[in-house]
């Protein structure tokens, strides 16, 4: 775990779960694996607080435990799964995707499960139905069956999955001596479990309840008590569902490829690639380098009916896609009118390369970008060759190359002519390696997001007094309006905030919105670079 990742994880934990969990989490990330007692001793926190923090982290799937170094008889050891914490940055994107695919119901389901880590199906359905009912006009309520159908659709398309059972849960109740705790080194994927996407049979009928004001509080309490005892009879105790992040990431990757094709060529080509990806969704594994081969006939049949293009035009589009230097689509055969695949890894590499080039262009200017692109294409070049190919005057070329070199975006390779590495008899070649540069940029992105979060916290802290005052005034206004006050009283209360304060508040809100929006945008770059780097690593 790099320093920037640890810092970002700490900030994210603090934002969502508070200082205590942040302290425990960052210490555990830095130390690797620790037992409960060691963790409590080193963080100097009370044992109960450490226990609570670990419970929170495990509920959200960010912490895992396993048998320690002394085997199953020794104390349990805990370790943090860092990438899960970094996924917290992307929660709005997941929720928005669920909304665009499955409507408001899907959006609320995913939001509930993300906020609570893992939930049973029945509790999710109830909570979501209640929330939807709350927003509906008076008299209407949301039926459970609609929520259940949305949930089922999410599970069918693998966006939600069951939490993997622990090995210790499989031990029978006869109390065996050797408790099979999962070993720390073995990493069980949730998909290893055969029933990963199987919906449980639950007996759930009813409608969402509207939350009423406090007069009915007691009736609610009694109803809530009754509901709790009902839970055990629902039929899905112990089956918890979590969000399948990998599936969301595949969806984002597909979206990025389709957008790139639409931008580079045109809308119709984007639709063709979208059709190809949709057809091969179920047949392609998560780490595959390219999709299954699809024949042009199949693609033609599967195109949406709104795109009424003739068969020869489709062939032309496919040929264009294959000939494009970005290499999104490749041709693997001639049967069935031509067999085509989408080159997933190649597409990711090209998208990452485009990101790197754009970063150099925005930071150092278009001429430096030209030199950078040149080096990416031609691999190794001497200084003189760089000047000639890039058509940049010698002095400026040197300047730009040295700037890029000092930022570590360009590397120097020495090729000696003689064994004594004499400078006059050595070739010095400039080169760019895409993968290490992508990693470097990814770390810079983490640092950027960390800086953005810290700045936002600083801005909030500076104006804390003002924010509290405005919150209090809003609360007063709301209560006055609820009890039916006159317009004079309302204006009187509103005038409690002076005009310059109002301006300050407005600019504060503007800054915070900008910082938040930047975080979301940097996260898109982070996703692209992470996908590229993961695609180059061999699958586990």
């Amino acid at each position, binding site marked *: 775990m790099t320093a920037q990742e640890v810092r970002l994880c700490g900030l994210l934990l603090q*934002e969502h779960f508070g200082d205590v969990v942040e302290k425990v989490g960052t210490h555990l990330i830095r130390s690797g694996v620790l037992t409960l007692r060691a963790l409590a001793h080193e963080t100097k926190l009370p044992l*109960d607080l450490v226990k609570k923090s670990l419970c929170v982290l495990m509920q959200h799937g960010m912490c895992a435990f396993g048998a320690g170094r002394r085997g199953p008889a020794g104390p349990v050891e805990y370790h943090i799964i860092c990438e899960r914490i970094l996924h917290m940055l992307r929660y709005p994107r997941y929720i928005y995707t669920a909304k665009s695919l499955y409507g408001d119901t899907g959006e609320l389901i995913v939001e509930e499960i993300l906020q609570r880590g893992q939930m049973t199906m029945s509790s999710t359905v109830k909570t979501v139905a209640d929330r939807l009912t709350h927003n509906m006009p008076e008299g209407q309520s949301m039926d459970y069956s609609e929520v259940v159908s949305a949930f089922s659709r999410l599970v069918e398309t693998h966006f939600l999955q069951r939490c993997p059972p622990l090995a210790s849960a499989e031990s029978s109740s006869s109390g065996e001596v050797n408790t099979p705790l999962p070993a720390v080194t073995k990493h069980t994927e949730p998909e290893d479990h055969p029933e990963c996407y199987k919906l449980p049979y639950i007996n759930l009928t009813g409608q969402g309840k509207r939350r009423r004001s406090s007069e009915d509080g007691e009736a609610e309490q009694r109803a809530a008590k009754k509901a709790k005892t009902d839970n055990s009879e629902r039929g899905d105790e112990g089956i918890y569902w979590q969000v399948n992040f990998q599936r969301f990431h595949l969806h984002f990757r597909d979206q990025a490829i389709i957008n790139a094709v639409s931008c580079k060529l045109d809308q119709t080509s984007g639709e063709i690639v979208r059709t190809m990806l949709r057809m091969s969704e179920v047949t392609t594994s998560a780490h595959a380098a390219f999709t299954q081969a699809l024949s042009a006939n199949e693609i033609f049949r599967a195109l949406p009916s709104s795109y009424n293009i003739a068969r020869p035009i489709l062939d032309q589009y496919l040929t264009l896609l294959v000939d494009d230097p970005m290499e999104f689509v490749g041709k693997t055969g001639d049967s069935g009118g031509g067999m085509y695949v989408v080159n997933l890894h190649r597409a990711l590499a090209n998208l990452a390369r485009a990101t790197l080039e754009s970063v150099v262009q*925005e930071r150092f*200017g278009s001429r430096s970008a030209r030199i950078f692109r040149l080096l990416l294409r031609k691999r190794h070049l001497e200084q003189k060759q760089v000047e000639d190919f890039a058509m940049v005057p010698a002095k400026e070329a040197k300047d730009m190359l040295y700037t890029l070199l000092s930022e570590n975006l360009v590397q120097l390779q020495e090729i000696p002519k003689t064994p004594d590495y004499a400078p006059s008899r050595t070739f010095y070649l400039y080169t760019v390696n895409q993968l290490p540069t992508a990693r470097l940029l990814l770390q810079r992105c983490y640092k950027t997001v960390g800086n953005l979060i810290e700045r936002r916290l600083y801005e909030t802290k500076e104006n804390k007094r003002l924010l509290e005052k405005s919150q209090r005034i809003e609360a007063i206004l709301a209560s006055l309006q609820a009890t039916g006050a006159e317009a004079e009283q309302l204006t009187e209360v509103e005038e409690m905030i002076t005009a310059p304060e109002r301006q300050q508040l407005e600019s504060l809100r503007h800054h915070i919105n900008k910082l938040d929006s*930047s975080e979301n945008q940097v996260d898109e770059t982070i996703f692209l670079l992470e996908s590229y780097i993961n695609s180059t690593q061999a699958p586990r």
Partner: protein
Amino acid sequence: MAGNRGRGRSQFTFNVDALGFGRGDSLPSSAQTPSPLFPPMQFRPVPLHTGEEVDYMLALKQELRASSKNLPFHIKAARTKTDVARYSDKYQNGEPKNNCIEWSPDWSRMPKELCIKVRKTRKTAIGARPQLTPKVAAKKEEVLQKLETLEKREEEQHSEEEEDEEKKKKNDEEEEPDADEDYDEEELEDETDYIMSYFDNGEDFGADSDDNMDEAVY
């Protein structure tokens, strides 16, 4: 090597032109101060994306952040009492306590050592009063049983044969504090004629703003 030192003294071993400056030119001045914290940028950054999607995700992000502060997963350390024990302490139950957890996780999915008492929220059910009398008699036995469980629990941290027993005892123990707390709260509530905010001892007032207040407040 030693051979060529006298002849061609000012010859370098590499091509000087490649350095970018001639022989007679002065070297660029060395830096006397650390580089500025916010160096002036040559190129301004590209403006952010705008649009409905971006605005919606921004709103989502801010909502998530606000609502996560209210969830029970947001853990606050209990404030250590610096004062003497006060009479109003037993009426103040809103503060988070260190030794209980505010939500109930599925303990079967977590290691046994993490198990903490689940905090029951105060219930203001008035209809529970008639249940008080039978509970008084059972309370003494529960106290004895609780003492026994606590004793046993200290011994069996690592042994595996008593795992099942522990599970059963924990289930019993979890129900007991519920009964105890309900009983205590109702009895205490019945004793006082004041509303709960009467016992607010002003601890929260100005508690957050003690940055530089070392002197006493007059």
